[in-house]
């Protein structure tokens, strides 16, 4: 049981697909119960991963390796280290909460809806646990397909446009990434005469600088589009805004992390020389800082609540990439922690938009005002989410941004100064949003009738709030599991630098 725990967690959503498909489509309640049950079981089963994880051990844990396609050297090779552990936990939790949030928000074509979420969940988990690049690529692509349908079928007004834009954009990035992977695979075979996609073996590949450049930049495009980094972010506002609430939550909280994870797990270790070239670092840092500031400024202009949250993702993910390419311990560990933080806080912000949208069917900020009088509990939850996102001390965002800024400061004071401007702007747009929607007099009579959070909605927010406070007050366990893997990456990149 224990030695297959990781694959059980990985494949549980797909196994859950079988009963779901057998339930007749008109039994809506049973379908919902089934999907929520599978997702909850997935989360509960992933808890032992965290509990049994040994933070002091180097290397991967819960590893499993099985032959898959020996003739091309691809194997079913999975395992997790601290970085993947945090992301896997985030995925199982968010996956469950997003499903729970769909309970009353989605009423048509339920069977397809939940089936797609289960496939999506398996795909995302697969991305975070694969230690074989072929397997990784397969999961990476699998994720796109259900998300296309989720946006396209259950999305808002411009859903068709948003869905295909999302799909084409990310696919273009990932097929180029495939070329990078294949180049690496071929270089390894040239050097060692063994064709393998095994990450551990590919790490031993020595490449000419030009080849490494090619590998790095093709991988970069795949990951940068996913993150998304400026200027590859244009798919994001459309996809996030048009997707149904649960789709936006999963997109923002988990799928964007696939890009950040790709940088940490593949780009830096596989192409350490290029990643540490000064001009490469400077370019990516500049793009990150542009994303931080530009995303924040655009947020200030938004009239649409959901679009504002979407653009705030661009800004916050800029912090993550800035941290990662600071290439020191604080930067990378902060980048990973901030990925989790962004998952928690932006997930909450999208859920909050979902709560009011479900009641009022409007995303216009001006359609609301003074909601705190009508929905006091909701106002409290929103306040916590806002502070967490804005980086207020004692909440998670502060820890992540602080660590990243410390990492960036060690490299360049200018970076740190510019990036901290982003923190200030974030506080500005978030507080202003809060003020416009929550505070003051109730501006629209219709809003007086809105009901406050119900028990199910509380159940969605509470775990996220608890995690946000946990990281904010006592982040040590999170940094503990990150220490070994991040240290290893930093050393590898430093060894690569000339």
């Amino acid at each position, binding site marked *: 049981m224990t030695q297959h725990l990781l694959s059980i967690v990985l494949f549980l959503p797909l196994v859950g697909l079988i009963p779901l498909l057998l339930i007749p489509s008109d039994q809506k309640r049973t379908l919902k119960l089934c999907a929520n049950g599978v997702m909850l079981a997935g989360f509960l089963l992933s808890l032992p991963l965290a509990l049994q994880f040994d933070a002091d051990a180097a290397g991967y844990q819960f590893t499993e390796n099985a032959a*898959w*396609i*020996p*003739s*091309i050297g691809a194997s079913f090779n999975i395992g997790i280290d601290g970085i993947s552990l945090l992301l896997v936990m985030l995925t199982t939790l968010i996956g469950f909460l997003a499903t729970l949030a769909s309970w009353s928000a989605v009423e048509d074509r339920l069977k*397809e809806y939940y089936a797609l979420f289960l496939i999506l969940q398996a795909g995302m988990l697969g991305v975070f646990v694969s230690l074989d690049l072929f397997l990784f*690529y*397969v999961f990476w*692509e*699998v994720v*796109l*397909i259900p998300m*296309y*349908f989720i946006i*396209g*079928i259950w999305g808002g007004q411009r*859903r*068709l446009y948003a869905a*295909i834009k999302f*799909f*084409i954009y990310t*696919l*273009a990035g990932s*097929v*180029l990434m*495939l*070329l990078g992977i*294949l*180049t690496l*695979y*071929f270089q390894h075979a040239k050097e060692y005469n063994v064709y393998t996609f095994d990450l551990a073996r590919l790490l031993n590949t020595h490449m000419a600088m030009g080849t490494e450049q*090619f590998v790095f930049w093709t991988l970069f495009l795949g990951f940068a589009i996913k993150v998304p980094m400026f200027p590859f972010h244009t798919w994001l506002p459309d996809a996030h805004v048009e997707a149904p609430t649960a789709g936006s939550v999963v997109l923002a909280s988990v799928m964007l992390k696939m890009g950040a994870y790709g940088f940490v797990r593949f780009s830096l270790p596989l192409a350490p020389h290029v990643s540490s070239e000064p001009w490469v670092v400077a370019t990516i840092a500049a793009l990150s800082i542009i994303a931080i500031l530009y995303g924040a400024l655009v947020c200030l202009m938004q009239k649409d609540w959901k679009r504002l949250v979407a653009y705030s993702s661009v800004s916050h993910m800029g912090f993550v990439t800035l941290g990662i390419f600071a290439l020191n311990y604080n930067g990378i560990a902060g980048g990973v922690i901030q990925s989790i933080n962004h998952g928690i806080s932006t997930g909450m912000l999208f859920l909050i938009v979902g709560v009011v949208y479900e009641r009022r069917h409007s995303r216009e900020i001006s359609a609301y005002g003074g909601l705190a009088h009508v929905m006091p509990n909701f106002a409290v939850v929103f306040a916590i989410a806002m502070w967490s996102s804005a980086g207020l001390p004692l909440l998670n965002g502060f820890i992540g941004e602080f660590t990243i800024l410390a990492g960036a400061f060690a490299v360049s004071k200018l970076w740190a100064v510019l990036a901290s401007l982003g923190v200030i702007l974030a506080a500005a747009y978030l507080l202003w949003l809060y003020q416009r929607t929550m505070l003051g007099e109730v501006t629209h009579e219709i809003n007086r009738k809105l009901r406050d959070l119900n028990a199910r909605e509380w159940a969605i927010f509470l775990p996220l709030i608890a995690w946000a406070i946990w990281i904010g007050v006592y982040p040590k366990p999170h940094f503990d599991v990150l220490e070994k893997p991040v240290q290893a990456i930093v050393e590898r990149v430093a060894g690569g630098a000339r």
Partner: protein
Amino acid sequence: MSQFYTAADNLALKPALALASFGCVILLLEFMLGRARAAAARQWILGLSLTGLAVTAWTLWEQQQALDGRRLTAFSGAISVDGFALFFNWIFLAASLVTILISYRYLEIEGEEQAEYYGLILLAQCGMYFLATGTDLITIFVGLELMSLSFYILVGFLRGERRSNEAALKYFLLGVFSSALMAYGFSLLFGVAGSTRLKDIATAIQSRDLHDPILLVGLAVTAVALLFKISAVPFHMWAPDAYEGAPTPVTAFLSVGSKAASFALLLRFFLEPLGALRDAWQPLLVAVAVLSMTAGNLAAITQTNLKRLIAYSSISHAGYILLGLVAGNETGLQGVAVYVLVYTFTNLGALLVVAALRSKVTGRGIEEDLNDISGLAQRNPTYAALMVVFLLSLAGLPPTAGFLGKYYIFLSLIQTGHTVLAVVATLYVAVALYYYFGIVKMMYMGQAAERASLISSSVGMRVALGITAAATVVIGLYPEPFLRFAEISLLR
């Protein structure tokens, strides 16, 4: 047996004999029985053609066992059966089987239930057999003509429909033109070598000056004819019309069977006799491949007819397959084999769904327009879901079979240093996805068409759907045995 017909000859000829005899008997049945009685016996005719395929399968299996990886040369070098030929013949067999399975109901709806139809399919497959096994110009040419003539008739099989007639005429005229070109090219090659055996031609070419104009003209003319058969740009004009006008099962057979056979011939030709001229034809193939991907993909975007869309997409697939030949290393050739294999099942599957759109209720009202597939997900979720699988595979996304084909092609380009080509080829995947998902958009997000076309599902259709879908998914998830098979086939 006599020295004119040895045991080896017999073994090499068996599948062709099975196909030809069953084909001819079925062809003559209607003539002998009379129309009315033949129509009454149509289930028996279907059974007879399936029996023909079973016998063919058995003879192929026999060859596979007897060869055990070796090469069997028969008729003093006019035919040679090797792993390569067998690999392609299994593909032809699968294509015929699926075509016959989906044809029965389709012909019933169209009211064109002649027995010749099945006979022609078997005869076309017999032609394909010689295209894959032929190592002599004459054998190859006869095989090619047998296949093409059968297809000319099959494409125009819906006599009452203008589209079908027009398509057949267009296909016939251009097809005959290309056959003439091929005959001309062959005559030049014969002139160079003084023999019709590919082996002798290869030796003759090697011993000659590679800039010999006769040789180059012979190469160019033969190449054009071959490229015409695989519908590569700029020799693709016939494909969209023929695909659109032909009865949908014939479109399926034409798009995979004829294409696979032509690729088998093209591979054998470019690698064996023309191998020495590699420097001359490689730039030509690069241009043709890039043009095919470009024109095929871009034209497909604007199509509103499903069969035309698939026709243009199949032009772009020809471009991808050619890239494997451009790379020309072991991976590239394996890529061609794998690509043809997965393309066969996937394209058959996609066209099968299109064929199923036409039902008894709606009859000929359906013109395979994009709108006809609108809202299919609500009307028939299984067909719609499997169509998504087929389209993903055509686009080349994992975990479907189509990815494997693309994987090998891309890898071979990287191995041989064609990085720019690789980038172009990968980016066209994203373009192709756009139009494939135009179909998905209609199925899942479109409103059900007013003239709701009910899917016509028969046992044969369901079996065929099962075969194609299973192949697409299984090759995608567990490709190992298939890759082994393709690898072994190419070891010569």
